[in-house]
């Protein structure tokens, strides 16, 4: 026994050389083709360099040769889990530039759809987070319930993932006659599922041991690194644009901005779980009050924006998404920039993961909820 103790004590003082490993581009926990070049000493992370561009598709360049109604059809391929919010950002930006006032009905439908999309995104995040931590059951539970939302999308929008539902001037189709019934049925069902999620993962000892008190992000650092969304709100950065710069029908609903000042991996998890309850509350407030009216205003056949610069910010499931359109008065934009939340969030990882174990890096990646096409564009 004494011999063993001796070995253990000396082991504590052993230092190994630093070495580099590639995490990705096909690593399951990077959720896409992202390569992290990790500098390690033993298990301790010293530096993380994200290498991106594997699926860069030049969307900003392509956008320069497209018309404004076509522009939205690229944004849903970027962050495919926030397709509704991305297309909404483009639609709002074009509407603001043209000073088009959309009917109240459109605002309500857009908000409900955006919150359903947020629920679907957070659900997928939850089940994948469990899977990254080695709990495969969560993956099946989460995907099973997500199907219900995708069925609702399919019925009204005609697609399950690439939802080109928001167009400049309104929404593409009016809601399906079954929409309200189905959404209410889903909400009733999902309210029983969320506590199940909590029972399954939130209190799990293995899960909490790996996430509580791990990888802190302070509020100041979150702001400096441009981190937004639930990731930043877990650090106390009040950045929810739905609350602070409301668009669509967010000024007509009551909801809490989920904030915490802890900023560890577990808090980032908790904030997203709490946000699902807020999304449910927003949908419940709106679903019975959708005003009558048209689902879109008639736009001109060729949409031309006045000369100038237009910026629109929306809150996607991952954080702040921005559309910056520079127009020279023609039917296609002069320059388009998409400020994607994942891009800014990703590069804060090096700052957070330094000094923690490589297994913690997997948990950090999960709570950042990255979508790679959103970063690569």
């Amino acid at each position: 026994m004494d011999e063993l103790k001796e070995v253990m004590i000396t082991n504590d003082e052993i230092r190994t050389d630093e070495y580099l490993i590639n995490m990705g581009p096909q690593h399951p926990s990077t959720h896409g083709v992202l390569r992290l070049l990790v500098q390690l000493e033993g298990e301790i992370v010293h530096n993380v360099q994200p290498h991106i561009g594997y699926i860069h598709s030049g969307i900003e360049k392509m956008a320069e040769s497209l018309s404004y109604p076509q522009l939205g059809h690229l944004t849903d391929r970027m962050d495919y889990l926030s397709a509704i919010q991305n297309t909404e950002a483009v639609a709002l930006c074009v509407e603001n530039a043209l000073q088009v006032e959309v009917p109240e009905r459109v605002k309500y439908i857009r908000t409900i759809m955006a919150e359903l999309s947020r629920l679907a995104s957070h659900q997928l995040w939850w089940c994948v987070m469990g899977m990254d931590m080695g709990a495969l059951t969560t993956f099946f539970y989460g995907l099973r319930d997500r199907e219900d939302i995708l069925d609702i999308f399919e019925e009204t929008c005609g697609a399950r993932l690439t939802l080109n539902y928001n167009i400049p001037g309104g929404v593409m189709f009016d809601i399906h006659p079954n929409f309200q019934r189905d959404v209410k049925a889903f909400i009733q069902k999902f309210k029983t599922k969320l506590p199940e999620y909590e029972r399954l993962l939130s209190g799990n000892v293995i899960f909490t041991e790996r996430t509580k008190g791990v990888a802190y992000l302070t509020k100041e650092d979150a702001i400096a690194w441009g981190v937004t969304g639930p990731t930043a709100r877990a650090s106390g950065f009040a950045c929810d644009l739905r609350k602070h710069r409301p668009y669509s029908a967010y000024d007509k609903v009551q909801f809490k901005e989920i904030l915490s000042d802890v900023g560890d991996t577990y808090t980032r998890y908790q904030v997203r779980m709490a946000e699902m309850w807020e999304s449910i509350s927003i949908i419940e407030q709106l679903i019975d009050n959708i005003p009558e009216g048209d689902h879109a205003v008639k736009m001109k056949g060729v949409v031309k924006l006045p000369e100038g610069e237009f910026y629109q910010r929306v809150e996607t499931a991952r954080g702040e998404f921005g559309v910056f359109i520079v127009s020279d008065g023609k039917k296609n934009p002069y320059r388009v920039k998409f400020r994607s939340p994942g891009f800014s969030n990703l590069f804060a990882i090096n700052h957070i993961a330094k000094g923690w174990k490589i297994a913690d890096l997997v948990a950090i990646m999960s709570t950042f909820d990255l979508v790679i096409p959103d970063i690569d564009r």
Partner: protein
Amino acid sequence: MTNEALIAAITGIEAEANTLAGPQFVETTVPLAGFHAFMKKIKEDPALSFDYLICVTGVDRAETLQMVYHLESTTHKHLLVVKVHTADRTTPVVPSVADLWPTSEFHEREAYDLLGISFSNHPDLRRMFLDDNWGYPLRKDYKDDIHIVSR
């Protein structure tokens, strides 16, 4: 801070800044020479405290190359757009603000990659998405005979 007060404060910092209240934001164009000092002041001045850099965009303006910075103050909730131009198209250099807002390091790398704008005092200026020998696709004079069909 109201738009008028914001414009007055900016003019107080940089007399040569061309500031106007646009439909969405207060926009200011500052000369390249005093750009970094200006950015440092608007970040550190407690009355302005633009601590959150939302978005950095490079725009090819034909004669010049332009950088556009969207800024927000998390304490005062006001917004500002800062623009800076460089007339040199062959070796354009803009001072980096990565020492003020760490997030801009990566937005600047993106602008370098896609528009070929260099940033002085940048900690790690490398291509981001594309190969080292690729052109700068977001420039208006970019030619790609294979992938881009022009009619």
